[in-house]
């Protein structure tokens, strides 16, 4: 293969040099392949955990809805979360406030002021936020579900995907592509908030431009433009932290504004733009007619949840396993056939030592409307034909090229642009070029994980892609460094998962380890981990990074819990309870946020007790009442009958020795 072909190279190059070159090339390519596989499985890990989290969210959403709707009424706390009439006019902004001041109707001065203020890390005063949201609400009310645009009025339309609170990416887009204006129209395709730390700033900027250029700025709703997702994924927390006085009101108004965002945009009757995708049931005419404002995306799950989660609890101590696992295993049921709700269709919910009966009111039409919107906001494309429930996410569908073809053909369209999935290059084409995924949050999973991108369409509707990547450091990282950073982050997340399921895993490991040697085979280890965690990952490939091998080639299974230890242990708590709380700590945080209306960080022991009972019965998890009481009392250090919730959470914070080491190695 290397004999006598290239004489145009260095003269009289000895054969030895050629052999040396081949050797180096061979070695290096293998090195790069190893990096590539690490990068791939790192991606798989992030994505699996992300989607599993979203799935959990959907499973629990009915519970949160129930809490939100019923909690205050039932314990007589009054209309704490009722909508108050927005009296932003009466809010006085102190002279000491040095942030931006807006004047309505907005002008270019206002948007420029906002942009420079946010670059300087300033916060917009609550009064202006409320006013902005109020105006946006008024504006969106008159918009239809589906917006029809024409490309001929301007040169090119720019379409951006998920931003997820990454202000740096938005500013980079504006820097590269120019600000929105009559000559520079934009469409933002949903998921503006959650996960990133600057979600409210992004919302403010997008809404400001929306009001300023109503004909040239368009926003589609994403699955994260929803108050229950926001509770879990950080937007609610961000708002409450930045707006201590007006946070609740802002969130209340945002909830309404989100539900008013349009669902789809269509350009020249040829290009359909939605956040998630489509299903074989997607009907654009029906979608246009739905009263989007009234459809509550995650509330409708109440209907299905009643059949799949029982309130009976399992009694054996070792089964502190997630009964959610059984919910997840069953595929999402198709909507039941239309029938009149009978009086027997009541949801029985234990609460405060009595049973609350809730009628299941959803008539078929509402269910169909809900499904139309969920499909459009949650679906993902797949490469095989057909349409199947999206079990990965827990909502929407996987739609194949045939589904795309059929829908586009039906409406005489040629292209579907969607977002919703992170892509390494910021964009991806599929379905023979009929579907574009566009994702605008670079470094989404971790520094260096992916680029962001936006797409431009001119009147001939040929897409042009632009990529970018926000970088924290000026020094360019090598491929190896980028992969290592992302990989250790992903592995850390996986190790946390392992730790959170420790008892269950140990019990299963020990079933294989009859002689109590502390070792089992790699296959056995992989089988256990896969069935307990229910994450579809290449466990055998990951094994070297997660657990130690003994000298006989078997796995020392306890070593997978080694690098993690919980923080301050709570006294008098059984391991099972601690672990359960650790596993559900995000959900607990959400629930406490709901209870702790004034965000004082304190809740009463009684509230804690009752809520825990409700939560655990919803999950079907059996935890001893006495243990709860003991724990609650032990958390109440000053014995005044109230719990400092933040201290409580601290007890379950995980300490990573691994983290310190990484930082030291730089």
């Amino acid at each position: 293969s290397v004999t006598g072909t290239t004489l145009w190279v260095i003269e009289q190059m000895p054969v030895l040099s050629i052999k040396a070159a081949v050797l180096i090339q061979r070695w290096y390519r293998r090195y790069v392949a190893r990096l590539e596989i690490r990068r791939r499985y790192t991606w798989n890990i992030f994505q699996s955990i992300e989607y599993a989290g979203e799935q959990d969210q959907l499973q629990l959403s009915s519970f949160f809805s129930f809490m939100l709707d019923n909690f205050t009424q039932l314990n007589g706390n009054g209309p704490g979360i009722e909508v108050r009439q927005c009296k932003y006019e009466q809010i006085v902004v102190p002279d000491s406030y040095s942030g931006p001041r807006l004047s309505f109707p907005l002008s270019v001065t206002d948007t420029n002021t906002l942009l420079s203020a946010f670059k300087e890390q300033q916060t917009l005063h609550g009064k202006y936020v409320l006013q902005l949201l109020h105006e946006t609400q008024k504006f969106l009310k008159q918009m239809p579900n589906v917006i029809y645009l024409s490309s001929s009025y301007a040169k090119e339309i720019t379409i951006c995907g998920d931003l997820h609170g990454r202000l740096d990416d938005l500013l980079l887009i504006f820097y590269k592509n120019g600000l929105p204006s009559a000559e520079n129209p934009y469409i933002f395709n949903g998921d503006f908030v959650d996960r990133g730390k600057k979600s409210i700033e992004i919302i403010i900027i997008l809404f400001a431009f929306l009001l300023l250029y109503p004909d040239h700025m368009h926003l589609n709703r994403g699955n994260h433009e929803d108050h229950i997702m926001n509770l879990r994924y950080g937007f609610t927390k961000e708002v409450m932290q930045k707006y201590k006085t007006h946070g609740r009101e802002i969130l209340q108004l945002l909830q309404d504004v989100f539900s008013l965002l349009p669902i789809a945009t269509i350009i020249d009757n040829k290009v359909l733009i939605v956040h998630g995708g489509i299903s074989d049931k997607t009907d654009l005419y029906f979608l246009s007619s739905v009263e989007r404002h009234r459809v509550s995306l995650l509330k409708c799950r109440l209907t299905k949840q009643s059949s799949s989660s029982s309130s009976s609890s399992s009694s054996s101590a070792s089964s502190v396993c997630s009964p959610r696992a059984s919910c997840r295993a069953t595929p999402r049921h198709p909507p039941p056939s239309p029938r009149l709700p009978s009086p027997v269709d009541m949801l029985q919910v234990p609460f405060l030592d009595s049973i609350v009966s809730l009628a299941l009111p959803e008539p078929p039409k509402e269910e169909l409307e809900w499904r139309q919107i969920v499909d459009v906001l949650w679906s993902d494309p797949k490469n095989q034909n057909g349409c199947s429930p999206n079990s990965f996410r827990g909502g929407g569908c996987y739609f194949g090229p045939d589904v795309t073809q059929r829908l586009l053909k039906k409406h005489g369209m040629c292209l579907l642009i969607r977002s919703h999935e992170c892509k390494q290059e910021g964009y991806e084409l599929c379905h023979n070029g009929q579907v574009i995924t566009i994702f605008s949050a670079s470094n989404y999973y971790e520094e260096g994980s992916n680029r962001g991108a936006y797409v431009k369409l001119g009147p001939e509707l040929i897409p042009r892609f632009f990529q970018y990547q926000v970088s924290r450091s000026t020094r360019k990282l090598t491929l190896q460094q980028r992969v290592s950073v992302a990989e250790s982050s992903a592995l850390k997340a996986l190790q946390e998962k392992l730790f959170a399921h420790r008892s269950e895993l140990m019990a299963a490991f020990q079933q294989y380890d009859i002689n109590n040697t502390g070792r089992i085979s790699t296959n056995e280890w992989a089988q256990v981990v896969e069935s307990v965690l229910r994450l579809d990952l290449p466990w055998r490939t990951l094994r070297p990074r997660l657990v130690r091998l003994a000298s006989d080639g078997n796995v020392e299974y306890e070593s997978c819990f080694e690098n993690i230890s919980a923080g301050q242990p709570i006294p008098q708590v059984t391991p099972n309870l601690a672990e359960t709380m650790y596993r559900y700590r995000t959900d607990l945080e959400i629930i406490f946020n709901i209870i702790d209306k004034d965000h004082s960080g304190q809740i009463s022991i009684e509230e804690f007790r009752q809520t825990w009972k409700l939560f655990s019965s919803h999950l079907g998890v059996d935890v001893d009442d006495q243990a709860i009481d003991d724990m609650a009392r032990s958390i109440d250090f000053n014995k005044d009958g109230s719990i400092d919730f933040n201290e409580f959470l601290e007890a379950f914070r995980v300490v990573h020795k691994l983290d310190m080491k990484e930082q030291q190695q730089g």
Partner: protein
Amino acid sequence: STRYDLYRVLHAALCLFAICSEAIVSELHKRISSAFDVFDHESNHTVDVREIGTIIRSLGCFPTEAQLHDVIAEIEEEEPTGFIRFERFLPTMSRILLEHRFRPVPEDLLLQAFEVLDQQKRGHLDPEELTRYLTQEGEPFTQEEMEEMLSAAVDPDKNLIFYKDFVSVMTVDDPW
């Protein structure tokens, strides 16, 4: 009788051998399957043919590009579809691993290779000369491959490649 005993011993030995090799092969199959799965995006037991090189290398093999092409030719469909099916990949890959084909490049041999290129025996190479060798000789690197190697290999202060350090850094951190 002794013949019967011999027969029993032989039978037992064969069973043991069968179990062991079955266990070995089964373990091997699972390893191969695991690596394959990383790239099986549709979960339909196929991968893009362009990923085969990465998969084979990630299983510990060091094939040359030419050797890789031969393997692909062996496992491709009669009418190439751009995808490789697991059923065809598995037996070929098993054989490759059992035969220890495409053995690793040991660190000292790698060092010798660099020393060969370093004709003046200075202990380092210029980026330009390494680029010349690797993009024009052997199985040439693409520009992207070359740039990536340089970003990791070149000492930014001196703009030279101290290949001894480079090799020892790159061969550390290999849990496989």
